[in-house]
């Protein structure tokens, strides 16, 4: 298999990677240590592997790494950390939206993309935005509440 050497913009940093031409973005990111991107199904049906690609959420298991060279990739670790959490991450904590936490990175990133476009979404808009993200632990109740809480807090602080 042909190998490609290329640069990606990941979480604000330039990362040079060498990878086989047919590797998915999910596999490449995880192999490179970005294990906050979770693999739940490898078929684009669960949303655990969502990353933001130039700000838009994609299932990274459905994207060839070679097709996104040079694009800006954001994982959940790029939004914030335990030392400096993003308001969306903090809202997920405060609303009790994190149970096992496996779907959480994808949920948080989809929320970030939603709120960037629509700062005060309705409940229906939240549900539609999260349609591609499965969670088996929470019944989604507290995830929806977390998105609303994040929206309110972010609106309050501009």
């Amino acid at each position, binding site marked *: 298999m042909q190998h490609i050497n290329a640069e990606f913009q990941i979480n604000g940093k330039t990362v040079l990677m060498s990878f086989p031409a047919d590797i998915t973005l999910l596999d490449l990111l995880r192999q490179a*240590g970005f*294990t*906050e*991107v*979770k*693999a*739940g*199904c*490898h*078929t684009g*049906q*669960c949303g*655990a592997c969502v990353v933001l690609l130039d700000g838009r959420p994609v299932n990274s298991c459905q994207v060839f790494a070679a097709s996104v060279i040079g694009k800006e990739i954001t*994982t*959940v*670790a790029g939004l*914030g*950390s*335990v030392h400096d*959490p993003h308001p969306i*991450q*903090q809202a*997920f*904590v*405060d609303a*009790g939206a*994190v*149970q*096992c*936490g*496996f*779907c*959480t*990175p994808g949920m*948080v990133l989809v929320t970030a993309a939603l709120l960037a476009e629509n700062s005060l979404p309705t409940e229906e808009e*939240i*549900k*539609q935005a*999260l*349609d*591609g*993200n*499965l*969670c*088996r*632990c*929470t*019944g*989604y*109740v*507290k*995830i*929806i509440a977390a998105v609303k809480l994040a929206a309110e807090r972010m609106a309050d602080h501009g």
Partner: protein
Amino acid sequence: MAEHTHVGKSEAKIDALSLAAGSEKFCDDYQIPGILETALLTSPHAHAEIVDLDTREAEALEGVVDILSYQNVDAVLHTSAGQGFPEPSPYDDLLFDRRVRFAGDLVALVVAESREAALRGVEAIRVEYKLLEPLFDPEAAESPEAPRLHVGEEHAKIPAVYEPDHNLAAEVEISFGDPAAGFADAAFCEEHVYHTQYAAHCALEPHAALARFDARGRLEIITTTQVPFHARRIVSQVCGIPLHRIRVIKPRIGGGFGGKQEVILEPLVALAAWRSKRPVRLVMSRREVFVSSRTRHPMRIRLKTGADAEGRITALEMEGLMNTGAYGSHALTVLSNVGAKVLPLFNKIENLHFHGKAVYTNLPVGGAYRGYGATQGYFAFNQQLDMISRRAGVDMPEYCRRWHIREKETSEVFQALGEGKEGVAQVLSSCCLDECIEQGAQAIGWQEKRGRRLSPGADRVRGVGMAICMQGSGIPLVDMGAAAMKMNEDGSFNLYVGATDIGTGSDTILAQIAAEVLQVDLEKIIVLSSDTDLTPFDVGAYASSTTYISGAAVLKCARKIAGQIISAAAGLLGSDPADLKIEKNRVKDTRRKREAGYAEIAVYALYQHDQFQIQAQASHVAGESPPPFIAQFAEVELDRASGRLRVLKFVSAVDCGQPINPQLTEGQVEGAVLNGISYALCEEYLFNRQGRMRNPSFGDYKIYSPPDMPEMVTILIDSHESSGPFGAKSVGEIAINGPAPAIANALYDAAGVRLFSLPLTPERVWRALRALREENKAKR
């Protein structure tokens, strides 16, 4: 009731932020240089004998390191059910066998330098199968003509009915009073046959395990397990590796729901690592999780009730046939639970007969799944209650209030039916089911909606239905949990528990219990859980046991620590220990105005006088299993044209004793409810004629996503269980039981049709509506 500082407070889950930030490690997140990857070869046939397995071509491939199969792995009969020892599940499973018993059964494991090489290895293995007649119909399993699945040395480990010569994996029977006389006395009888389906847990994290060696050559297994200590025991048993050379570590787990109570992958990675002396990883694909891990046992339940004119049940007969698939994992205990967790609820039934059988078929394997048989049993039981109360002319909430078990009452079933053996008698010290029913009915708007058939538009009609259920809190006199603690010189504490947080928040719950006793902030309790080298034993995360059993162990342990703190403080302050009491972060002399901070006390004990480590351990086994109770209510809207059933609103009112953390408690209920609704309406394994699962993906096996949610209301009823830590019972499983019967009862309320088979698909509903129309036409 005592005012608490931590108990009953919705403190943030201690790992929530790290999970939301992505910095926690799940099993597959460990980056280990030089780790070998693997791929599974599974059987395409439901029932076959392997005539020849030729691995030469595969072994010659670049990157392939080893291939495990029956040819080079010892045949050790065991059960993959991660239960206490001796296990109540039959020893009927080998890691690899010459005979394959379902499409998805394991044939070989390829170990290679990369996942790609392992997959190429799988492709290159040549297997010659001799096809055997498959058995798919559980109803035919015991017939003399039926093919037999287990013809070797398979046996039960405990005294239980196990007769593989007619495919019988388990049988349970209890009887009280005189059912025949009870039916003869009845004013009316209802007898129906209910069917429940194969279903998957669908934890978002697929099953995974990895094994590596430490510097001294001990094997370290990091795995997605609910049962680290059982996993260690079973790996040692199956692989012949001494137990002292195995360490099992549970990292963060991406959901379990019973699916990770099964020890399937751990022996495989252990053996592969033991043979190659290199680290090995195995991660199941989503398809493999669906097909080759474990499922909810499908059941056929025949339920017959006789009742007098007022609806008092004069006799009840429940007969169950459970399909355990190719292996008997959890067969006996799930089967027992169908009766044990359902029948005590109506404890005034004097004449009762419960008879269950679990049989083998050449289909995927059953296992533990949240609800554990109660889910199947309650689907039948609560529809029956709806029918009886309607015929007796009593509103169902009132009917349930009249007959359910109460505080200070017992049921003969508790003693008669345990998990695979006799149970333990108990008298209830808490039951707030009346309040659950009352508050739940009010929240759904029962009075305004029941029997009204409200119609918001053409072809659309609404109805409401309800269900009541109980579960248990651990397995009495079986489940044991232990905890250890030590104090640090800043007044913080390390808490070590074997209990297994699989996403439920049990690390947080247990920390809150310790923080309550010791009166420190939650961050001062540093939790380390589920590491067989570092933490004491715990049976693990199952049977709704962690808060009640492991929580009680933590409570005992923290109280011992508090006692040591007091005695050290007495030395430090020159006080009489009897005058000392614990307040926030310090000990106070209540007679003489003196006090010492925790840090000061810890430093005194560690460095200054009669030095010792303030530390303690405690174990807990319960002599009872106080049931939590729940009343659940569904409002549905039926589209008569398509048969589509939509849940508009779902209310759960639960008595789980004192919730240690209300937010996490609600989370348990909400998650279980949506799983239960999804199970009721759309989840189902589909098989082709060869017994292969046709829908092993999230695309074809639909589980509910956010737009499918109804409005959900969760009410935590004020309750206190005197035997539980700070009054707590359990909440992990119970809420999954009610959605299916509540929705089925709501469908009847809306349209007068009753469905006895799950899931309640549009097609099934539509056919029932058509049959009703034709019946009505014939009457006219």
